[in-house]
């Protein structure tokens, strides 16, 4: 293990390199661009033995690695915002085909108006697409989660694509000290991929066929049912990683931070750092950080929020038409069957790269303390 001070994107590229992917489909878009750029340096300098396909569009970035994954190669891509939206159609196909794939999304606002800065609307808009989605808090977690993502996606019980979300700019462009694991340890943790259903003339298989209504509905239901079985495997992989590398992120599903207080903030991603500072500065507020966003760990979240007076969901996205953010809907749903459920409020902010400060959050808590079902917008600054 070497401690290095690295830009977030470059640290992620190091992590990807350690995982020895075979085929990478890459197209530039801010703020994910530094990831493929650094990977291209690795490939061109002979440090990473991989085929990096410099495609003509994100649609082909994802399509090319679908082809490679189906052929049995370990694959990678990274994108943001418009790039993810352009991939949309193929994302459903990839999860429908249950392929092992890993993608990093450097989260960014969606057009229009066009905006290159961070929020979560890109990933949130893909919440129904059947990809496992993890949100990380810092660069170290991004590195570690990429490595875990390969173990998760390549687990025979899973064989389902995984998306690792990291806040654009806040994490992709920040310099942080990170432990880059040793190649030997990663090799032990992540054996070479042996995908069971690969395209192979020795055993011809048809991938991605046409299906009439009944077989289609049956396959959809199977994926729907299977999807929730991934949660314990995400945890299992996280725990095994923690044992080997000595770093853990809550229980791998959610992270509770001083969650023994009457008020709990629920959020995801890098804003959790700000929330932790706030939590440290007072004694009535704790944090639950959702790390596994899809499949949504409903029972685990409910357990962590049982007995609270008030839950404040902070998020950087909107669920258009639902009068709230999207994370709020899941959290409220998790509280649905609770007898004495906590009051629950929603604070939306960070949209298009606007700031959310500790003071903003403190103010929101004080304002919403006695309320229930309020949708609050943080003041827009930045």
């Amino acid at each position, binding site marked *: 293990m070497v401690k290095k001070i690295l830009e977030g994107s470059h640290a992620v590229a190091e992590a990807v390199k350690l995982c020895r992917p075979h085929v990478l489909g890459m197209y530039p878009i801010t703020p994910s661009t530094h990831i493929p750029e650094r990977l291209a340096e690795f490939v061109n300098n002979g440090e990473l033995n991989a085929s990096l396909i410099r495609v003509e*569009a994100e649609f082909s970035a994802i399509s090319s690695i679908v082809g490679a*994954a189906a052929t049995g190669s370990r694959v990678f891509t990274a994108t943001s915002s418009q790039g993810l939206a352009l991939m949309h159609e193929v994302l459903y196909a990839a999860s429908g085909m249950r392929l092992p794939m890993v993608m990093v999304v450097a989260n960014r606002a969606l057009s229009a108006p066009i905006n290159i800065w961070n929020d979560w609307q890109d990933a949130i808009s893909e919440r129904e697409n059947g990809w496992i989605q993890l949100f990380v808090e810092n660069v170290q977690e991004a590195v570690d989660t990429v490595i875990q993502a390969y173990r998760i996606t390549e687990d025979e019980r899973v064989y389902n694509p995984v998306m690792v979300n990291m806040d654009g700019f806040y994490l992709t462009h920040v310099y942080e000290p990170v432990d880059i694991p040793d190649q030997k340890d990663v090799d032990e943790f992540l054996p070479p991929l042996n995908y069971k259903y690969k395209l192979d003339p020795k055993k011809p298989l*048809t991938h*991605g*066929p*046409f299906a009439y209504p009944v077989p289609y509905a049956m396959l959809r239901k199977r994926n729907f049912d299977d999807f929730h079985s991934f949660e314990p495997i995400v945890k299992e992989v996280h725990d095994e990683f923690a044992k080997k590398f000595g770093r853990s992120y809550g229980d791998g599903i959610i992270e509770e931070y001083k969650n023994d207080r009457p008020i709990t903030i629920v959020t995801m991603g890098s804003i959790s750092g700000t929330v932790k500072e706030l939590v440290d500065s007072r004694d009535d507020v704790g944090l639950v950080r959702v790390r596994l966003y899809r499949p949504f760990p409903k029972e685990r979240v409910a357990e962590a929020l049982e007995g609270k007076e008030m839950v404040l969901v902070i998020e950087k996205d909107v669920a258009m038409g639902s009068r709230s953010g999207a994370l709020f809907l899941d959290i409220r749903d998790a509280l649905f069957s609770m007898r004495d459920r906590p009051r629950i409020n929603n604070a939306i902010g960070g949209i298009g790269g606007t700031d959310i400060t500790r003071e903003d959050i403190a103010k929101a808590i004080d304002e919403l303390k006695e309320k229930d079902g309020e949708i609050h917008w943080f003041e827009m600054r930045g």
Partner: protein
Amino acid sequence: MKGDLFAPGHRACAGCGPAIAMRHILRASGPDVIIAQATGCMEVTTTPYPETAWGVPWIHVTFENAASVASGIAEALKMQGRENTKVIAIGGDGGSADIGFGALSGMLERGHDVLYITYDNESYANTGVQRSGLTPMYAATTTTPAGSKIPGKTQRKKDLPMIAAAHHIPYVATASIAFIEDFEAKIRKALSIKGPKYIQVLAPCVPGWGIPENKTIYYARKAVETGMWVLYEIENGKLKINYRPQKLAPVKEYLEGQRRFKHLTPELIEKIQDFVKAEYEKLVSKDGMQLF
């Protein structure tokens, strides 16, 4: 061999031209191949889950990405040291010339070891015979109906093989399912060449063209005899016309009996004749020339 790698029993129409093309693609390729196919008739009719007509590994992802999927397959095979296995991407004219055009161009430009085959039935047959960029001039389709004001499609057919060749790839060819040995030979030749290759095979569509189901090959041949479709190869940029009739048959012989051309007036037929003659002469005059 137990029979064709492309099995009968698929759901394509009786007399389907593209289905004939599929059978012969696999006859020429043999079993050591992976197929990436675009959405379209040949995907829908050959893989009604849990059945499949494909005796070789086959993948379909979306309508517009067969070329990109094939790019990834070829790179994966390279990384795994399985380069002996050939990769063929297959798309209809819509999947290749229109919606998948960017992906096709990207694949050709990047130089992947892939043979891309367009089966050209000159329309979006799968969705009910709408116009594509490869629908010929004045053909009636469901989106370019023969109206009293506008007589079908008013634009010419996009010159996709030449566009492919302009990527400076090692091999481009046109083919027709009426010249099946020529088609198979071209596939075999293409597969013996490293890098990106492009073949476009004319494959009549029985319901789309409005022809009898026993006339598929007849029209695939008439197209070539009239100069509506010319068989050629462009190898390392050099053009070779493969088939030159002694004398071009009048286009009328090709247009006649096809419902999509039923509305044509003698004037329009003459316009098509003049256009075809001029285009044919232009092409033939370049025979043997280094085009790219």
